[in-house]
């Protein structure tokens, strides 16, 4: 095949590829018969961790377990459960780890307040350091003898510069 024909062939092939992908994406979209409910499912799923991939939310993950858990969330919402009840259902099974936002409780105090404690400690250290420096550096006027020495030094320096 001539280069031009190869090129045209590739363009056509690529076009078909993209058409194929977009068609598949259309099919993969879940049938949202209730957009308000779907929105609620999605919002809650963003607060929950996928246990398989761990650094993904339940909303983002494509793991099979994530799909199942999203279905659970959807079903329970349909059954009229509140978000709190659903979170309680999940933490009873998977622990607090399932929550993306760790709860404020004694074991997580260090996590929540640690940075502020460190910041406070840093400020105290900084303040004390600055204060001590200020005490050390005192403006004491030079004695006549020192003034004469300084002048002599300065004169020789400039003398050298000129020479």
């Amino acid at each position, binding site marked *: 095949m001539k280069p031009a024909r190869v090129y045209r062939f590739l363009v056509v092939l690529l076009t078909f590829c993209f058409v194929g992908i977009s068609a598949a994406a259309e099919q993969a979209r879940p049938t949202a018969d209730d957009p308000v409910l779907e929105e609620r499912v999605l919002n809650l799923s963003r607060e929950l961790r996928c246990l398989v991939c761990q650094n993904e939310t339940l909303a983002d993950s494509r793991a099979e377990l994530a799909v*199942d*858990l999203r279905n659970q969330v959807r079903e329970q919402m349909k059954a009229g459960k509140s978000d709190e009840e659903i979170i309680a259902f999940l933490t*009873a*099974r*998977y*622990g607090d*780890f399932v929550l993306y936002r760790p709860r404020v409780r004694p074991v997580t105090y260090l996590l929540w307040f640690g940075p502020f404690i460190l910041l406070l400690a840093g400020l105290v250290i900084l303040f004390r350091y600055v204060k001590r420096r200020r005490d050390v550096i005192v403006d004491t006027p030079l004695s006549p003898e020192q003034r004469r020495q300084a002048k002599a030094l300065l004169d020789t320096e400039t003398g050298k510069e000129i020479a």
Partner: protein
Amino acid sequence: MRYLIPLVLFLGLIVFLAIGLTRDPHEVPSPLINKPAPTFTLAQLADPSKTFSAEEMRGKVWLLNVWATWCVVCREEHPMLLEIERSGAVPIYGLDSKDKRGDAIAWLRELGDPYVLSVSDFDGRVGIDYGVYGAPETFLIDKNGVIRFKRIGPITPDVWQKEMLPLVKELNK
């Protein structure tokens, strides 16, 4: 003294990081330990007309092993399960998770069946009740139906000898 404080802080950091390295972030501590095992009644894998319920195991120490034919590590774990079964230390019941019946039966025929029986949890609901997030997982359940131990990942000879077998013996006393 000036150099001691940063040094101590640095060493502390190293210790924390070193401990962090030895931990497996995939092992999520289960909130179900020392809680009653969730009840279920499911169809048996070998004969779907029969059911099995966790309630039937009251008064016995038993293992509930979550497995599936799509689970690669389960294949790795399988010989260990057969060995436990042969030793007669504790009965193993299987929770076949999100599987196809034909595949599961063929798997047991090919590799051997360490289970007293397996139940079909094909929609994974019971798995969710047990907080399962990856097979294999194994629960050790005591005579009162309380979960006493959970193994996430395959039971290795080491885990069996050092952690599970001593607990099984103690619970059977």
